[in-house]
């Protein structure tokens, strides 16, 4: 808590990011307490522009955009979050496996990684979305995205681990009788932490972006509100053509706020968790 307070106080990027993310999280939490089921159409008059009664107006389906958006934000965050957790867990596992085992294992894993980096992901994703169409929900989407986004980061984790492996203190730990797993967990993870945080958030952003792309193409379950499907519907009802800017604008705005918030947060946190900076703080 103190950490957040400090960060908030001393890092402008962090505080802006933090406010954005809190705003988004607040929306996501609000989604659990809607005053009425916002997904039911024709609850309100159609195409009302934003007002006090409807903060973000209503759409052509007669739904309140704000309350729909709360669910959309929540689902998109679920997709981004779970996908990032899956992909980064895989990436760390695979990357450290390659890094620590070295030799032939490393070469095999690296080549496989390279191959997956080279395979075009969007078509693959469209194909998968297509195959699993009926089973798509935020969770399965997150899993799918997570399993497509490990190759790049695992390459990076591998190189990080390779350099950590060479560090003097790794040797010291080894001669202190530590086993490899202990070394990874106790010595290396604290160093990877800032990188993992920043990288996970970039995975988060990627997943949200991909979900949006797929949904805009209409390949996600369109009855589940996400930022992407909200854009899809706004598009479907030609909100731009009809000048209902608040409909298309809301999810785009939310997306911008989410991505920028997360990005700034990752930069702030990354700097904060950076070993060099942590060292400064550890000094007395």
């Amino acid at each position, binding site marked *: 808590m103190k950490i957040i307070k400090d960060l908030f106080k001393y890092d402008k990027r962090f505080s802006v990011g933090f406010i954005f993310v809190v705003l988004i999280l607040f929306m996501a939490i609000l989604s659990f307490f809607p005053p009425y089921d916002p997904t039911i159409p024709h609850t309100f008059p159609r195409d009302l522009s934003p007002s006090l009664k409807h903060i973000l107006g209503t759409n052509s389906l007669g739904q309140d955009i704000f309350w729909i958006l709360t669910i959309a934000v929540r689902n998109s965050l679920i997709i981004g979050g779970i996908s990032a957790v899956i992909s980064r867990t895989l990436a760390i596992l695979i990357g450290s496996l390659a890094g620590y085992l070295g030799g032939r294992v490393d*070469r095999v894993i*690296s*080549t496989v990684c*390279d191959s997956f980096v080279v395979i075009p992901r969007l078509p693959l994703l469209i194909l998968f979305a297509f195959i699993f169409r009926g089973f798509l929900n935020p969770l399965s989407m997150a899993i799918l995205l997570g399993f497509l986004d490990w190759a790049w980061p695992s390459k990076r984790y591998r190189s990080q681990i390779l350099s950590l492996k060479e*560090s*003097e*203190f790794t*040797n*010291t*730990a*080894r*001669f*202190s*009788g*530590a086993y490899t797993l202990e070394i990874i967990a*106790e*010595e290396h993870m*604290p*160093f990877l932490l800032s990188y993992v945080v920043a990288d996970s958030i970039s995975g988060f952003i990627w997943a949200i972006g991909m979900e949006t792309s797929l949904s805009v193409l209409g390949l996600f379950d369109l009855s589940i509100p996400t930022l992407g499907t909200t854009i899809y519907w706004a598009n479907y009802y030609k909100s731009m053509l009809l000048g209902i800017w608040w409909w298309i604008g809301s999810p785009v705005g939310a997306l911008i706020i989410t991505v920028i918030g997360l990005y700034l947060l990752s930069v702030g946190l990354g700097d904060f968790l950076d*070993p060099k900076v*942590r*060292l400064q703080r*550890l*000094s*007395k």
Partner: protein
Amino acid sequence: MSSMNGSKLVVNGVTKIFKMGSGFSRINITAVKDISLEIDLAKGEIFTLAGESGSGKTTLSRIILGIIEPTYGKVLYRNKNIFAMKRNERRQFIKEVQVVSQNPFEAFNPLKKVESYLFKTAIRFGLARDKKGAIPHVEKALKAVGLSLAEINDRYPNELSGGQLQRVAIARSLITQPSMIVADEPVSMIDASLRMSIINLIKQLNEESKINFIYITHDLATAYYVSHKIAIMLKGEVVELGSIDLLTEPLHPYTELLRTSIPEPDPDKALEAIDKELVISKRNFDSDFACKFADRCPSKMKICEREEPKNYIVNGRIVKCHMYSNKGIKMTNSIQI
């Protein structure tokens, strides 16, 4: 023979070729070439590996520690090949052969408190069950290096000075009561005012506890001050090996060059001007000459370009130089001094 070797560390014809680069694109670099050494653990000696940067001394030390596996050759510790050891043998080896690394600031994870290394070493090697039980061991080791637990307790590495840290590092290596400590440039990163205290500490530990040291350094003055034997390394090869006194009257021209290049802290004894040929190789890349020193050797002969010099025994040392082909005894295989 075996009983004799039973108390020895034998480096036998070790060569290390590094493959540089990632993935499939690799370049071969020979860091260490066909080196054989022997250290009698019973004697309690300080053995110096000296050489300039890139001479392969650190690689050799890491091979001796079992961190890097040599491309050819082997290292026998008490008759056992350290690269063919079973898990528990390996652990025993680590317990007996410890390390003190070059940069004390890097030797400890900056995000961890330093005393944890001491306690964990004691616990992991079975000297104590828990932290409490380990306290006497830690205290003892710290006392040996002139510190107390109170001084370092609850401290992060960056809160201690380099000298203190290096003492802690030595204390850590002492916990397992090793027979040998490999110290890689232990004072090069230490402040001038503290340097001698570490060197003196090594000397003292060697004299009092008969701990063998392999002292790796480029600083011949401290090497002379502290060690018993020395091996001079040049581009992965040992060119001269023998008692530390060889520094006062070098045989190999390279050793001679090194010795004369050391500035003395005496304004009256200014260094002589150096022939720049000695410093700057005429080639950008490694010499193709058979003798690694031939490209800048003032006494270069024709043969030096073609034929790699053999090891000759001269005045109880081993010298790898064609100049001694008539004066010395040609060595065949392993080293006996």
